[in-house]
C-alpha cells in the first residue's frame, strides 16, 4: 500500500465524484497538482471548477474518491491552515465595515486563541503580507474603498498571512483592470516561486498562457492537464466548451 500513499507535496484528487442530488458536480476527476507552479483551472460554467475548490477546502465531501492536500485529508488540512482561499468579487460585501488590515488579520485567526486577540507575531505577519502585495499605505482603508484589483491583493495577503501552502483563487481577474491583472499575475508567480501551490480558476483563456505554467481543462472530469498551449488547443477547447467558442473567436 505504501506506493499508493498520497504524495505529501501535491494537491491530489483521485477519481472524485460529487453529486448534488441529480446533478453531477464532478465525475471521476483525477489530477495531481505540484507546488512551485501557477496552475490554471479552465472550464465553462457548471464544469466543476467551484466544486473542485470546495472539495479541497472540505466544504463538499465527495460521494466517492479521495482528496489529499499535501498528503492530508481536507478536514485536517484546513485545521492546519494549509489552504488559503481568495473569493470571487461577488461573494464579498464591499460595504462591510472592516479595514484592509482587519481582512488580512483574519488569515491569522486559525493560529490564535479563543478570543482571537492578535499577538505581536500576528501583527508582524499582517504588516509583512501587506508589504508583499504592496498595499501597506491602504492598511486602514475600508475594503470598499479599494479598486477591484487592490481588493484581490488584500485577499491574497490574507492567504500569505495565513501561511497557506495552497492558494485557491476563484476568477481573480473578473472586474479587474489590466494593470492590476499584471500586478496580481506577478504576485502569483512569486508565490509559486516560493514553493506554494497556486491554483487559479478562470474564464479568461487569453491571459492563461502568460500567467500559468500549466493548465487543467475541466468538464466534470479532467479532460487535459499540462502545458497551457497544449491544453488550450482549439480541438481541446471544443471538447470542454462546445464549438460555439471557436465561432466567437474567444
Amino acid at each position, binding site marked *: 500500500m505504501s506506493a499508493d500513499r498520497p504524495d505529501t507535496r501535491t494537491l491530489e484528487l483521485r477519481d472524485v465524484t460529487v453529486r448534488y442530488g441529480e446533478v453531477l458536480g464532478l465525475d471521476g476527476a483525477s489530477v495531481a497538482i505540484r507546488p512551485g507552479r501557477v496552475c490554471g483551472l479552465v472550464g465553462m460554467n457548471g464544469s466543476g471548477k467551484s466544486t473542485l475548490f470546495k472539495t479541497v*477546502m*472540505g*466544504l463538499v465531501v465527495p460521494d466517492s474518491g479521495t482528496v489529499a492536500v499535501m498528503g492530508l485529508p481536507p478536514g485536517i488540512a*484546513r*485545521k*492546519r*491552515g494549509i*489552504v*488559503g*482561499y481568495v*473569493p470571487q468579487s461577488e*461573494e*464579498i*460585501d464591499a460595504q*462591510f*465595515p*472592516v*479595514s484592509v488590515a*482587519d*481582512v488580512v488579520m*483574519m*488569515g491569522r*485567526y*486559525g493560529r490564535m486563541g*479563543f*478570543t*482571537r486577540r492578535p499577538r505581536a507575531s500576528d501583527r508582524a505577519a499582517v504588516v509583512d503580507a501587506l508589504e508583499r502585495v504592496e498595499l501597506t499605505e491602504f492598511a486602514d482603508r*475600508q475594503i*470598499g474603498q479599494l479598486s477591484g484589483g487592490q481588493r484581490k491583493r488584500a485577499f491574497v495577503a*490574507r492567504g500569505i498571512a*495565513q501561511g497557506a501552502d495552497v492558494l485557491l483563487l476563484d476568477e481573480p481577474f473578473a472586474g479587474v483592470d489590466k494593470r492590476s491583472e499584471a500586478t496580481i499575475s506577478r504576485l502569483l508567480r512569486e508565490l509559486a516561486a516560493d514553493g506554494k501551490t497556486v491554483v487559479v480558476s478562470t474564464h479568461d483563456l487569453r491571459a492563461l498562457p502568460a500567467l500559468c505554467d500549466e493548465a487543467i481543462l475541466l468538464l466534470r472530469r479532467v479532460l487535459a492537464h499540462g502545458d497551457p498551449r497544449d491544453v488550450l488547443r482549439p480541438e481541446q477547447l471544443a471538447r470542454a466548451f462546445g464549438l460555439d467558442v471557436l465561432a466567437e473567436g474567444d
Partner: protein
Amino acid sequence: MAELDGVLGLLLEPLQFDFMVRALVATLAAAVVCALLSCWLVLIGWSLMGDAVSHAVLPGVVLAYIVGVPFAVGALVFGFLAVALIGVVRDTSRVKEDAAIGIVFTTLFALGLVLISVTPSQTDLSHIIFGNVLGIGTSDLVQILVLGAIAAGLLIVKRRDLTLFAFDPTHAHAIGLSPRLLGALLLGVLALTAVVALQTVGVILVVAMLIIPGATAYLLTDRLPRMLVIAPSIAAFSAVAGIYSSYFLDTAPGGMVVLSQGAVFAIVFLVSPRHGVLVAVLRRRWRRRRPIRRRPAAP
C-alpha cells in the same frame, strides 16, 4: 441655579419610584444587549431571522412558565426549533426562504397566543406580547440582568469570530473554524436576547431593538468595532429618552423607547457625514456650483 435645579429635579423625579428605577435599568440592559447583537444581524442580513426568532420563542416562554423552568430554557428550545423548521421548509419544498420564515414564526407565535389563552396565571402572560416594563419585579430584573450579561459576554468574547462569520464564512471554514457553530451561537444569543427584551418592550417591538441600533451605527462608521460602541450608546440614549418621555407624557414606555430609536435613525439617515441622504444631496449641489475646480482629465 434655579433653572439647573429645575432640570435636575425633573430628571430625578421619576427615580423616586422604585418601579421607575427598575424599568429604567431593565430597559437599558435589554437595549444595550439587543444593540450589540443588531450590529451582526444587519450586516449578515438576518434582520428577518431576528424577527422570526424573537416571535417564535413565545410558546417556549409560556411552556417554561407552565412547567416551572427558567424562561430562557423554553426560549432557547423554541428559538432553535424555529430555525430548524425554517430550514426544513426552505430546503425540502419549493417554498422560498422569506415565505418559510413567515410561515414558521407566525405559526409558533400563534401557538404561544393560544397557550397563553388557556394558561391560568397570576402574572399576566399577555404582558410578554406588549411588554410591561413598569411592572417588572425584582426577580424579573435579576433574570434580565443575568441573561443580558451572558448574552453580551458571549458576543463580546467571540466578536472577532462572529465578524469573520458575517464577512466571509467560506474563509472561516477554510481555516478550520465552524461557520455552522458560529451561526448557531448567534441564533442562541438571539433567543436569549429575545427573553431579555420581551419583558421590557414585548415580543412585537423586540424586532425594532434588534435592527435599528445596528442599522443606525452602520450609517455612521465603516469600522465594526466602532459600531459595537455606537449602537449600544444610541440604544442606551433611546432607552433613557423613551422611559422619561413616557413618564412625563403618560404614554406606553415600550413604544416610546422604540420611537426614540426610530427618531435617532431618521436623523442619522438624513445627516450622517458619511452616508446621510441629505448630506449627499447637498454635497452634489455644492460640487455643481463650483465647476471650475473640477478640471477635465487630460486628453
